[in-house]
């Protein structure tokens, strides 16, 4: 049906059903009609077609209220074995999500993406908590001497002194999560910053001078890529003192090769453009050309890649700390908190693993989802991959 499809514009690359997070917004596809269809193309068009006025979705309300109730009740007062509570909790969450999503679509329009906003809210809360950690009314997160009195391995209880429970030394898990977020975000964002500055500079130099510089940089990049990321981190962890600065530097090496390549490619492209040639013709020095003309153009793709790779670096840091080669206890990191629960502890006290585990999952998920969404909006071509 090529001629028809041409005339109306096919499903454009960026939003073809082939790519990701689209399918997380729970929009019903249009029902398949007739003898022909096999699934419908593009689930979301179905609701986008009829622009309905803003309204209160009663079905949404009907789902949201019992869902939230079930979610709230299941872990606290439901008299049932653990796994039943867990299943009830998960089911309540799913129902509540479906209901709230409908309510929001009714209130804010059919294209409202609840998951995206939830992720955004989570990240904002996380960053704020990490920034404000010292002034927040949190329990003791580090000094074991101060928690001798406190209960050890207390399970989470939302309205108690320790909302998320305590670890084996009686340290408050909520406080440790928040301080862990501080370390985790600081290290990964620091690593991205280092990667951008160093990688951007090397890439621009390589792209600008070409010849030997380019070759040397190429060999360097390939060599960095020749060691699998985690192995590289472990090797560095062996010899470096495990403090925040060193970990950030080690992590930045993971971001470096791509940063260099992107900066180099951007420089090669832009160096041929008229405005760069014009600047050269006007007698601008090489440094001026690089800093004033090339850098601003190369920076944007680097920054967007930085956004995407933050979640990878968070996982890398957590893995390293989990293996005992990253942030060292008693300083909290999500990775070493999870490691505390390893062994027999987490059979009896699953919250030791689950609290930091769920936090880590939610954070990585939020970064991934927002990254995917951003990539799809700004780079439909790449989103196809």
């Amino acid at each position, binding site marked *: *049906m*090529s*001629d*028809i499809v*041409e*005339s*109306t514009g096919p*499903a454009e690359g960026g939003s073809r*059903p082939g790519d990701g997070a689209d399918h997380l917004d729970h929009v019903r596809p*249009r029902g*398949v*009609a*007739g*003898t*022909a*269809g*096999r*699934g*419908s*193309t*593009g689930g*979301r*068009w179905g609701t*986008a*077609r009829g622009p309905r006025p803003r309204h209160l979705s009663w079905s949404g309300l009907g789902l949201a209220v019992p869902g939230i109730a079930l979610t709230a009740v299941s872990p606290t007062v439901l008299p049932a074995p653990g796994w039943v509570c867990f299943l009830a909790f998960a089911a309540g969450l799913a129902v509540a999500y479906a209901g709230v999503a409908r309510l929001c679509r009714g209130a804010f329009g059919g294209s409202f993406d609840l998951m995206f906003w939830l992720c955004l809210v989570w990240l904002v809360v996380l960053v704020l908590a990490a920034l404000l950690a010292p002034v927040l009314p949190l329990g003791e997160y580090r000094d074991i001497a101060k928690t001798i009195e406190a209960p050890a391995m207390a399970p989470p209880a939302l309205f108690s002194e320790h909302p998320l429970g305590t670890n084996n030394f009686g340290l408050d898990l909520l406080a440790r999560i928040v301080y862990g977020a501080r370390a985790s975000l600081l290290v990964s964002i620091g690593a991205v910053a280092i990667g951008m500055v160093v990688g951007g500079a090397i890439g621009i130099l390589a792209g600008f001078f070409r010849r030997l510089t380019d070759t040397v940089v190429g060999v360097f990049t390939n060599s960095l890529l020749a060691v699998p990321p985690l192995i590289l981190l472990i090797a560095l962890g062996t010899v470096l003192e495990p403090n925040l600065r060193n970990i950030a530097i080690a992590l930045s090496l993971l971001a470096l090769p791509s940063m260099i390549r992107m900066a180099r490619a951007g420089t090669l492209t832009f160096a041929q453009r008229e405005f760069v040639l014009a600047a050269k013709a006007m007698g601008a020095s090489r440094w001026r050309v690089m800093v004033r003309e090339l850098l601003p153009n190369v920076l944007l793709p680097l920054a967007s890649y930085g956004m995407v790779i933050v979640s990878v670096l968070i996982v890398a840091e957590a893995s390293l700390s989990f293996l005992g080669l990253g942030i060292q206890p008693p300083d909290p990191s999500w990775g070493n908190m999870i490691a505390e629960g390893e062994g027999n502890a987490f059979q009896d006290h699953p919250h030791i693993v689950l609290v930091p585990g769920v936090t880590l999952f939610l954070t990585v998920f939020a970064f991934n989802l927002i990254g995917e969404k951003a990539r799809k909006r700004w780079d439909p071509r790449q989103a196809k991959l």
Partner: protein
Amino acid sequence: MSQSPLPADTRPPAGDPAPLLVVDDLRTEIHTRRGDMKAVDGVSLTLNAGETLGIVGESGSGKSVLGRTIMGLYTTGATMTVSGRVLMDGTDIHALTDAGRRELWGSDVGMVFQDPMSALNPVKKIGLHLTESLRRHGGLSRAAARARAEELLRLVGIPEPGRRLGQYPHELSGGMRQRVVIAMALANGPKLLIADEPTTALDVTVQKQILDLLGRLQAELGMAIILVSHNLQVVAGRANRVAVMYAGRIVELADADALFAAPRHPYTEALLSAVPRLHHPPHSRLEAIDGSPPDMVAPPQGCRFAPRCRYAGDDCRQVSPRLLSEAGGDAARAFACHHPVRPVNAGGS
């Protein structure tokens, strides 16, 4: 100006045997995100065994969709609603099960695609393209299928057929690839061949070879052909009858000679005057058709060509004309127009 109340497709089969293909009020709605697009909107036609029917229209007129809907063949993932009947030898193709249709495809009906580059799987050898169909429908052994495949390649004029069987599509030229596609369609001796823009993607010199090949094969094998093209010249001299499509409907259906000699629908006239002709005086202007085809999600009321038609009156914008034969005129000829173009021999327009 009066037209007979009989729709063209129900005219009595004047002494002919039962037609090979009867299409009755076929409608195809493709569901897109903007709404339902009426790609084919009430098409009826018949095709006799061994006959060639040309379907001509601009891109977007629904002619390719028509070709595929007749077969009941759709791209995976496309959602559409199809209504109407397609009788092939008396069986309703659309009433068949998927399995039943698959028995028909590749045996009784063959299809030639527009772009031979994309119609051949790049990672499968030419031989496999041909033999898998032969083995499925003919139940041939591996060796017999291979021998037959070689024969087929020879039939469509490919030199060194034995060597070609072991090659991949990209190792062949465009014209050769289209010959392979034709050989694929012919593999099991179909009664009907649907050729969807078979020459559009090819070089001009190759176009004629392919069309001549189709003509020769038809003479040798005696199948009916539906030749879909946006190009009137492709159809001219090769089709017995021509259906001109505009915006999902047939606007004129006539014997090829009559249609080219004296178009009755203003759209046909406009199409013909957009084609350069040898007997035109040099430097005479080619007329382009003003405007663009209508949006098929929300087509205009009345005659769909009216917004671009120089003869259109108020009635055209109100009432949709039906495809009818002119009373007392050529019974084999029908058009859908309130203000048809007068035949030249009847006094000019």
